[in-house]
C-alpha cells in the first residue's frame, strides 16, 4: 500500500499563523486606542482622501485615518462578537447542564426550545426584533446571544446525557455527591474543550453576523470604528479608494477565518484525544 506520508508541519504553521493573527487582533482590541490616541481625529476639509504616506489607507468622509480607525475598531468589532460568543456560552452551558442533568420536563422544554431556536434564521430574527423593538445594538447582541446559544445547549446537553450514565459519573453519585456537583465538577470539565472550540466558532460567526447587521443598518452606533460599520459606510468609496472598503472587509474575513480555523483545529485535537 502506498500511502502519502502526511507531515503535520503545514497544519502547525497554519495554526500558528491563526494564533498570531488573533494575538495581534487581541492586542489591537486591548491597546489599539491607547496606542493611537488620535485615531478619531477628524479633518472635514480633507474628506475622503486617497492613500498617501500619512494616511496609508486613505481617509473616510469625515477625514479620519482609515488605518488608525481599523486598529482602534478591533475593540468594538471583536467586543460585540465576543460578547455574543461568551453570552451564548454562558447561557448555553447553563441551560445545557440543567436540561441534561435534571432531565424530565425541564429537559424536554429546553430541548424543544433549543431545536426551535436553532431552526430560526438568526440574522432575520435579530433584524426583526431589534428593528421593531428599537433597542439598537444592545438588543441585537442580546438576540444574537439567545439565537447562538442552542448550539452550546445541544452540545452540553447531549454530553451530559451521554456522560450521566458513565461509570465515573455514577461512581461519584454513589459517593453521595449532589447532582449539581457531579454535573459541574465531573461532566462539564470534560466537555469544556469542545465548548471552547465551539465558542471560537461562534465568535467567528458573530463577527460575520454583526458585520451583516451593520450592512443592513442595524449595527453599532454611528461613528464607531466598527469594521462592519466602516465597510458599510465606505462602500461608496469602493471605486475611488478601494482600500477604504476592502480593508475592513479583509479584516473581517481574516479575523473570522483565523477564529474558524483555530476552532476547527481545537475541535479536531479534542476529538483526537477522545479517540485515543
Amino acid at each position: 500500500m502506498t500511502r502519502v506520508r502526511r507531515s503535520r508541519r503545514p497544519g502547525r504553521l497554519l495554526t500558528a499563523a491563526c494564533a498570531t493573527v488573533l494575538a495581534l487582533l487581541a492586542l489591537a482590541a486591548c491597546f489599539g486606542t491607547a496606542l493611537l490616541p488620535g485615531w478619531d481625529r477628524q479633518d472635514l476639509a480633507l474628506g475622503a482622501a486617497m492613500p498617501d504616506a500619512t494616511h496609508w489607507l486613505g481617509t473616510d468622509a469625515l477625514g479620519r485615518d482609515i488605518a488608525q480607525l481599523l486598529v482602534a475598531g478591533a475593540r468594538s468589532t471583536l467586543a460585540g462578537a465576543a460578547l455574543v460568543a461568551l453570552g451564548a456560552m454562558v447561557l448555553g452551558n447553563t441551560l445545557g447542564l440543567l436540561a441534561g442533568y435534571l432531565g424530565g420536563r425541564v429537559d424536554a422544554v429546553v430541548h424543544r426550545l433549543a431545536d426551535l431556536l436553532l431552526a430560526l434564521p438568526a440574522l432575520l430574527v435579530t433584524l426583526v426584533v431589534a428593528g421593531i423593538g428599537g433597542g439598537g445594538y444592545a438588543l441585537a447582541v442580546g438576540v444574537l446571544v439567545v439565537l447562538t446559544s442552542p448550539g452550546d445547549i445541544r452540545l452540553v446537553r447531549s454530553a451530559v446525557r451521554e456522560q450521566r450514565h458513565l461509570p465515573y459519573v455514577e461512581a461519584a453519585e454513589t459517593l453521595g455527591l449532589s447532582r449539581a456537583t457531579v454535573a459541574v465538577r465531573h461532566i462539564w470539565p470534560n466537555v469544556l474543550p469542545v465548548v471552547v472550540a465551539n465558542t471560537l466558532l461562534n465568535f467567528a460567526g458573530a463577527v460575520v453576523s454583526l458585520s451583516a447587521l451593520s450592512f443592513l443598518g442595524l449595527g453599532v452606533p454611528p461613528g464607531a470604528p466598527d469594521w462592519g460599520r466602516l465597510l458599510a459606510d465606505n462602500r461608496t468609496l469602493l471605486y475611488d479608494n478601494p482600500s477604504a472598503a476592502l480593508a475592513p472587509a479583509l479584516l473581517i474575513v481574516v479575523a473570522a477565518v483565523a477564529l474558524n480555523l483555530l476552532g476547527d483545529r481545537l475541535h479536531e485535537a479534542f476529538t483526537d484525544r477522545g479517540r485515543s
Partner: protein
Amino acid sequence: APPRREEDEGGQGGASPEKVTLALPSSLSSLDVGRESGTLNYAVACLVQEGLLSVSPDGELGPGLAARWTQPDERTYVFTLRRGVTFSDGTPLTPDDVVASVEAIRDPKNTNALAYLYAHVTSVKVTGDLEVTVRLKKPDALFLWTVSPSGLLVSSRAFLKRHRGEVGTGKTLLLGTGAYRVTGFAADDHVLLERNDAWWGEKPGVRTLKLDFVPDAGTRLVAMKSGAVDGALGLASDEARGWESAAEVTYTEDRSVVALAFDTGKAPFDDPRVRRAVAHAADRAGMAEGILHGKAQVAAALPSPGMWGDLLPAEQVTAAYDRIALPAHDLAAARKELAASGHPDGFTAELHYPGSGPQLGKAALALAAELKKIGVTLKVEEITLEQWIAELGSGKFPLQFLWYFPTTGDPAELLDAYLHGEAEATNIARYDQAKVTGALQAATTETDSGKRGALLLEAVTEAAGDLPYLPLWWASTATALSGRLALGGGDGPFALTGPWAARLRSS
C-alpha cells in the same frame, strides 16, 4: 467582453434611443405621491400625471392642464382646462376629473399625505365646459403652487373610483395625461414607462423608459460601468463622485435644506449663548466640503436662494443673505459663549438622524467631535425615518435635525412652517417672535410679489439673529447619464418636477 446593450441607436442615427434604463437608488413603495412623497416618487409620477399648472426647471409656474387661470377675488381661482387633452387610456380629460382628483386627496379615508395643502379650500367645483373653480377660506399666496404637480396630479374620476384606496400599486398603477404612461411597477424592482403618443406636449424622444431600483451603491455603479443602465437619478453626493469616471454627472441644487433646530423653549437651548456656542462649533464649510464633497452650498438661511424665484431679484437675495452673519467656525468663540452661558461646564445632548440620511449622520458626528472639545457631549444615534419624523413634532428632543424638501418654489413654505409663532405643529424650534410672525402674517395676504418678498426677507434676517435654527447646507442632487444621452432644457432645481424624461435626447 462586457455585454452589449440590448438595443443600440434605436434606428434613426442621432435621434433618441428607443429604450433607456436608469437606476434609482431606492425603491418606491407606491407610485401615488399622496402615499409616499419622496423626490423620486415625484420624478416618476410627474412623467405620468400633470397638475393644473406646470413648473419650469427653474421654478416658474406656467400653464399645465389649465391653459389659463384667473383670480376673480382674493379667495377664488378659476382654471380653464386645455382643450383636447386625453388620459393615456384614451378617455378625455374633463373638469370633473380634476374635481375628483382633489376630492381623492381631501378624502380623510385615503389619509393622503397632501391633504394638508387643501385644508383651507372651501370648494372645488365644475363651473363650465372646461372650467374649474376653487374657493378658499382665506387668501393664500401660495395656492397656485398647490395645484402645480407638487400638490395636485390629476387622474380620472373613473380610475380613482375603480381603484379607491389602492392607487399606485403594482396592480393598479397610475392613470394620467402625462408624457408617459406606466406599464409596469414592481416595488424593489422597476417601473416601466411607455411614451404616451397622445400627449399634448412635444413628443418625447425615448419610447420606453425603465427605471430600475438598485439600492446598493456598489452594484449600481457596476450596472453603469457594465452598460446595464444608461444613467441614474438621485445619487448622493459622496456616491456621485465615483460616477464621474463612468458617466456625465450633473449636480443640481434641489432646494432642500439641512439645519439644526434648537428648541428655544427648553434648556439648554433656551439660552441664546448656548445656541451660539454650538453654532461656533459647527464647521459648516467643512461639512459642505468634506461630507458633501463640495456639492452643497453652505446655507445662510432656511430657504435656498433658488426658492425666491420670481419674488425678488437674485441679487437682492444674495445681498441680504450676505449680510446675515451666522457665527463662524471658531472654537475659541464657542468656548467663550459657553462660559458666559448658563451652562459653563457644558452639557449633554442627543442628536438623532434618520437612517436614510447618512450625510446628516456624518455632520452630526463632525459636530459631536467639535463639541467634545468645548466640553459638550453630543450623543449621535441613527433611527429609522419614520421614527425620526415622529420625533420631530414630539417636543422631546431639544436638538434636532431639520431636513426639508420644499414642494413649492416659494420661501414662505419654509418660513411659515418653521418661523411663524403660531405654526405649532411644525415650528420645532418653538420660535415665537412678534416681529417675525408679524412680517410672515402680513406676507400671506400681500398680493404684490415684490412687497411679499421684502416682508419674507425681513422675517428671515430678523430671525437669523436669534438663531432658532442653524442652517447647515443647501443640498444638491446628482444625475448621471451615459455620454450618449443628454437631458435638454436646463437642469434647474425643478428639473424633476415635470415631464423631465420627455427632454431626454441622444447627445
